[in-house]
Every structure is written in structure tokens, then in C-alpha cells.
């Protein structure tokens, strides 16, 4: 059985879903206008990912190959809907700010990709740790993006004002184009260090 720590590290660093695999881009760009939203989205996706990984892994011997994708999708959609209800009932503010992107976790390529590439070939424990690692990697990436955009665009960190009122805010960064630019720069910085190494 694979080493849990290795699996988690793999998800966060070696195969970081956002910076290395470049999948699950829609929520990455859409909800990161603030750090809280980014982390909230990351954690919601992590929860779905862990549960769907476990169940796909448990069912991997029962599910016939021909209908495996529809089966995975049903499993994923079920957990997404559960998360949607839970957030709506207990964290309505987060539910409101993530909006449409909660039901859209279903089509986050990250989750289906892990079901197909990892969970359907490994045991439930390894699949759970893979889910945790990938989920955390995703959450951290979204958190960093949200932090940078919130700081430059609104002068706040986690809704607390850190830049003096007189300092101009670059509003563009909390709008759509800022999402593209911030991610581009973060990836370029990572590439730079990788090229050097």
C-alpha cells in the first residue's frame, strides 16, 4: 500500500492540480476574488473529492468498464448535491458567494480525473489520501490566488483592510482579467524556479 504522506505531498507539490496539471480551471479563476472564497471552494471540492474517491474505489470491482464514466459521474454528483444542501443549511453566506460554482463542482475535471486515474485502480485508503492531497493542493492554490487578488484589488486580506485607505486599489484584479493575469504570473514564477533547478 502506498505511503499516505507521499500521496498527500504528491497532490500538494509534485502533481499540484492547478499549477502542474492545470485542471479544474473554471472555479480556480472564478471564485478567487477573495481568499475566503478561494479556500471555501477548495475545501468544498476537497470534501467531494475525498468521498467520491473512496466510493469509486469501493465500487471499482462492481462497476463494469463500459459504464464506468456515467457511474463515476453519478457518485460525484451525489456528493456535490449533499455538499450543496449542507452549505445552504449551515453556511449560507459561503453558499451565496460561491453560487453557481457549487453545482459545477460536478464538472470539475480534477474530480473525474482522480476517479478515473487513481481511485478506480487503488484501494479505498490510498484513494482517500490521494483525495486529501489533491484537494489540499487545489485549496492551497485557490487560497494563494485569492490572497494575491484580494490584496492587490481590494487592499484587504481575509476581509481585513491592510493597505492604507489612500493607497490606490487595482480593481482590475478582482475582476475577470485579474484572475487570468494573477494565475499567469504565479505559474511563470514557478516555471522560473523549475527552469533554474
Amino acid at each position, binding site marked *: 500500500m502506498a505511503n499516505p504522506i507521499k500521496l498527500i505531498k504528491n497532490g500538494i507539490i509534485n502533481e499540484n492540480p492547478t499549477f502542474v496539471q492545470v485542471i479544474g480551471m473554471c472555479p480556480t479563476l472564478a471564485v478567487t476574488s477573495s481568499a475566503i472564497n478561494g479556500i471555501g471552494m477548495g475545501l468544498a471540492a476537497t470534501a467531494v473529492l475525498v468521498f467520491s474517491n473512496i466510493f469509486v474505489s469501493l465500487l471499482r470491482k462492481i462497476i463494469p468498464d463500459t459504464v464506468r464514466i456515467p457511474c463515476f*459521474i453519478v457518485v460525484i454528483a451525489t456528493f*456535490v448535491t449533499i455538499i450543496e444542501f449542507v452549505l445552504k443549511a449551515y453556511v449560507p453566506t459561503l453558499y451565496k458567494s460561491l453560487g*453557481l460554482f457549487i453545482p*459545477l463542482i460536478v464538472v*470539475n*475535471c480534477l474530480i473525474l480525473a482522480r476517479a478515473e486515474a487513481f481511485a478506480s485502480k487503488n484501494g479505498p485508503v490510498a484513494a482517500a489520501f490521494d483525495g486529501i492531497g489533491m484537494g489540499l493542493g487545489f485549496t492551497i492554490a485557490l487560497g494563494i490566488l485569492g490572497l494575491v487578488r484580494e490584496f492587490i484589488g481590494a487592499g484587504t486580506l481575509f476581509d481585513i483592510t491592510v493597505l492604507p485607505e489612500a493607497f490606490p486599489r487595482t480593481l482590475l484584479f478582482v475582476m475577470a482579467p485579474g484572475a487570468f493575469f494573477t494565475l*499567469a504570473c504565479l505559474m*511563470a514564477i514557478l*516555471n522560473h524556479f523549475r527552469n533554474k533547478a
Partner: protein
Amino acid sequence: MNLILLVLAGIFVNNYVLSQFLGICPFLGVSKKVDTAAGMGMAVIFVMSLAAAVAWLVYNFILVPLNIIYLYNIAFILVIASLVQFVEMFLKKAAPALYQALGVFLPLITTNCAVLGVAVLNMQKGYNFIESVLNALGGAAGFALAIVLFAGIRERIADNDTPKAFEGFPMALITAGLMSIAFLGFSGLIKL
């Protein structure tokens, strides 16, 4: 009149890719060449309009009467997945060349969040059948426009020197960001 505005708003003002961030995966993945981008755009227009229509029928004639609205997410995604399968089989027979070109990307339409997104948005906004289909058509046309323009720019960039660290995805993202600024100019033009 309003219906025309709905389509125009989908193409320019609320462009799914550049202002709503729906369908980013195929937007980044299938945009290295203009012809494949155009093929993908056409496929999305077709699948998305069809999916919106079927999803609307499923929602209003199955989910609502049976009082099982909470199954909407599963129902929509299954509708889309089967539709994509159908389109794939159809293309394989009717247009093998296009099928070859799109290759692995056709199944990816299933996980194009714009397709599911438009179905969910139509439901949330309570659009009627015609509005739903036109909203999907406009949104998909906007996607096609964005991806074809984007591929055109990327083809040019591919022949030029870019800073080493920015090669590949970062450069593509910067390009998308600049296009997004351009499309920002349309915002607020149409009130719905």
C-alpha cells in the same frame, strides 16, 4: 426584441469564458489551432443548445411534477453525458474528418462546465423553453467566438519569442486576460 438581446448578451456582455469563467478547460486545451478551435466551438454550440433544451424538458416535465428537484444536478449531467455520446456517434458517421480533428476533446464536452452551467442558470433564472435555448445558443456562440479569436492569437504567439518562464500556459493566460479586458468594454451595454 428581448430574445435577440438575450443572445447578444450571451455572446458579448456575459461571455461565458471571458467574464463568467465557464468552459475554461477546453478554452485553454483546444485552442492551439484555429481550425480545431472552430470545430470545438461548433460542437459546443450544437451540444449546448440541445442540452439546454433537453435539460429544460427534463426539469419541467419530470423533476418538478415528481417533486424531486434535488436530483437536478445528477439529471442534468446524465442528460449532457448521453447527448455528448450521441453527438460523438453521429460525427463519427457523418463527418469523420471533424471527428478525427476533435479526437479526445469531444468526450471532454461532458466536463465543459459551460454546458452544465447554462442548464443550471436557466433553471435558477426560471427561463421558459425558448429563452433557455436562446440563452444557451448565445452563450455557446460567445464561447465559439472567444475560442476562435484566442486560437488565432495563440497561433501568432507560437512563432514568436516569449520569456522562458512565460512559455506555454502563462502566456496563454495573459492572452486570455487581455481578451477579457477587451470584453469588459461590452459590460453594462445590455440590461436584462
